[in-house]
């Protein structure tokens, strides 16, 4: 075979479902294009403004007083937040954390005390924090927060992404490519969809047993898991990594590495259908990669953890932003020269918890008091007892629990 033949083969090799993919893609592109607004050209004023601001900043930073500012910026943003607490003696704002380490999930109590639940993988709180659902290979278990198992079920393949419904009486999970739901007492384990994408499913917050997920054909689907009926279907944003609902269920967030997308969702009680609007892109800084995103548990604010390209003077740059989808100003509670990970809202929506593994710190960022940061250091060793050398940094799973009036577990 010669190079010409190789070239011809590359052009001839059949591509599975090529025409369907093209059709779906055109629909998505047309929807997104229709949402786009043709911008007004204002390059010169913007450029002039940017040059003016840059000159002003340079003037300030090169002055003797500016030197102090530079030092402060360098100290704060590269090596960890100064004056961090040496030990986790409380969870700021209260509540309990579920933390994933190499040894398994830990429950951290409001006073900072912690308990290893056992050799489990993914874990999630029940809505009121009375139980934890945890996976271990192809087993799903419900545990009490002290680690006592209540029940377990087994599946054919490895189980991942357990998600407890807001009503507290269902748990959704993936096994292999299949999406399943089981009652919260371990009974009536049944399939919802045999072929789903790797993004975790998201329960509608209303208390109905309606589950949103992306299927293997890249469709966003909402299914009533009690009746098995399809309530809505739309093309999913390509590369969806996560789904999240606003607390009132009126907005669905789809986030990918490249952006945040919102859809308005409304329900028609007569036809029992859910109407989903076209996806609307949330503006983000250019070239930002999304690492995590979540709705506040209290309102429609979206928090996102972004990674921005390396700057000439250093490595990657991370930012935490808070976005008001109703058009309010975008806030930036925190930014560092370094890699942040995880992003978790406090149950009352007043704080965000992010990890800074290179600084071995957890950062509790207040959204009500701008700029207030409570940092705790020495996190890795706490969750790797007996580990010699540099301990692996744990992953924050969730922060429990919002108080609602229901009988949920």
């Amino acid at each position, binding site marked *: *075979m*010669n*190079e*010409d*033949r*190789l*070239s*011809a*083969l*590359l*052009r*001839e*090799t*059949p*591509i*599975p*479902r*090529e*025409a369907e*993919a*093209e059709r*779906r*893609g*055109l629909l*998505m*592109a*047309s929807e*997104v*294009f*229709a949402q*786009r607004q*043709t*911008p007004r050209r204002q390059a010169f004023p913007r450029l002039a403004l940017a040059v003016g601001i840059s000159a002003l900043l340079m003037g300030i930073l090169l002055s003797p007083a500016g030197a102090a500012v530079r030092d402060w910026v360098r100290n704060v943003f590269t090596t960890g937040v100064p004056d961090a607490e040496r030990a986790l003696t409380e969870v700021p704002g209260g509540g309990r954390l579920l933390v994933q380490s190499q040894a398994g999930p830990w429950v951290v109590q409001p006073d900072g005390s912690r308990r290893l639940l056992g050799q489990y993988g993914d874990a999630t709180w029940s809505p009121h924090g009375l139980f934890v659902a945890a996976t271990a290979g192809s087993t799903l278990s419900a545990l009490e927060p002290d680690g006592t198992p209540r029940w377990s079920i087994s599946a054919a*393949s*490895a189980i*991942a992404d357990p998600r407890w419904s807001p009503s507290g009486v269902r748990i959704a999970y993936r096994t*292999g*490519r299949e999406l399943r739901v089981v009652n919260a007492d371990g009974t009536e384990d049944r399939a919802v969809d045999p072929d789903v*994408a790797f993004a975790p499913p998201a329960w509608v917050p209303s208390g109905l047993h309606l589950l949103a997920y992306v299927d*293997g*054909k*890249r469709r966003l689907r909402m299914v009533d898991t009690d009746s098995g009926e399809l309530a809505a279907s739309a093309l999913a*944003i*390509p*590369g969806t990594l996560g789904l999240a609902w606003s607390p009132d269920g009126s907005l669905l967030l789809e986030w*990918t590495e*490249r*952006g945040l997308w919102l859809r308005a969702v409304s329900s028609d009680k007569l036809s029992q259908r859910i109407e989903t609007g076209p996806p609307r*892109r949330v503006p983000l800084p250019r070239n930002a990669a999304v690492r995590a995103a979540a709705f506040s548990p209290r309102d429609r604010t979206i928090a996102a953890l972004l990674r921005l390209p390396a700057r000439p003077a250093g490595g990657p740059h991370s930012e935490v932003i808070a976005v008001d989808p109703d058009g309010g100003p975008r806030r930036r509670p925190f930014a560092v020269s370094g890699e942040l990970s995880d992003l978790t809202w406090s149950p009352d929506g007043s704080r965000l918890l992010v990890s800074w593994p290179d600084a071995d710190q957890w950062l509790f960022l207040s959204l009500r008091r701008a700029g207030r940061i409570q940092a705790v250091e020495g996190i890795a060793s706490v969750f790797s007892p007996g580990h010699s050398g540099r301990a692996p940094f744990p992953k924050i799973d969730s922060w429990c629990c919002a108080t609602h009036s229901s009988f949920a577990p």
Partner: protein
Amino acid sequence: MGAESGAAEQTGWQEPPPAKVERRLIREAQHGSGEALAALYSAHWRRAHRAAYLVVHDAAAAEDVTQDAFLAAIDALDRFDRRRPFAPWLHRIVVNRAIDWGRREALRRRIDDPTPGVETGQPPEEVGEELMEALAQLPPEQRAVVVLRYLLDYTPGEIAHMLELPRGTVNSRLRRALDRLGAQLEVER
């Protein structure tokens, strides 16, 4: 490079539109014409999608990568310089994202997912099947240079620019890839 266009026609291979037509489509799309956008999309989708598939070897991922690249293109449409050709810009996004996906998938499979990630889809025939199997043995970075060179006809210099690599690296990746493909397919250089 031989076109063998008869067989290629059957799989929907398409050449990009003439530069003049493309510039007009981009201008009209920049002014909000949905028809122009659809025409651009149709003119470029299959080549971009095929390139993505040959790098990632997974139909769903290839669809995601290609759609994502088109959404990025729509996002950046107003900043696009109409004097430049559209295809290399699109292919650069597609191939870089396909490489990223391939790396992530390889890592994910190593860590926690025993299910195979390589999907051959409908059973391809004989040599095509051999080709896919041989490509699957290459790391995504090598698949990408093979696809850019032998599917999309870019020169090593152009590939180096698209992937932000030294030209020597592109040549060595091509050489290693062809050596490994040659062992299975007897590719002559």
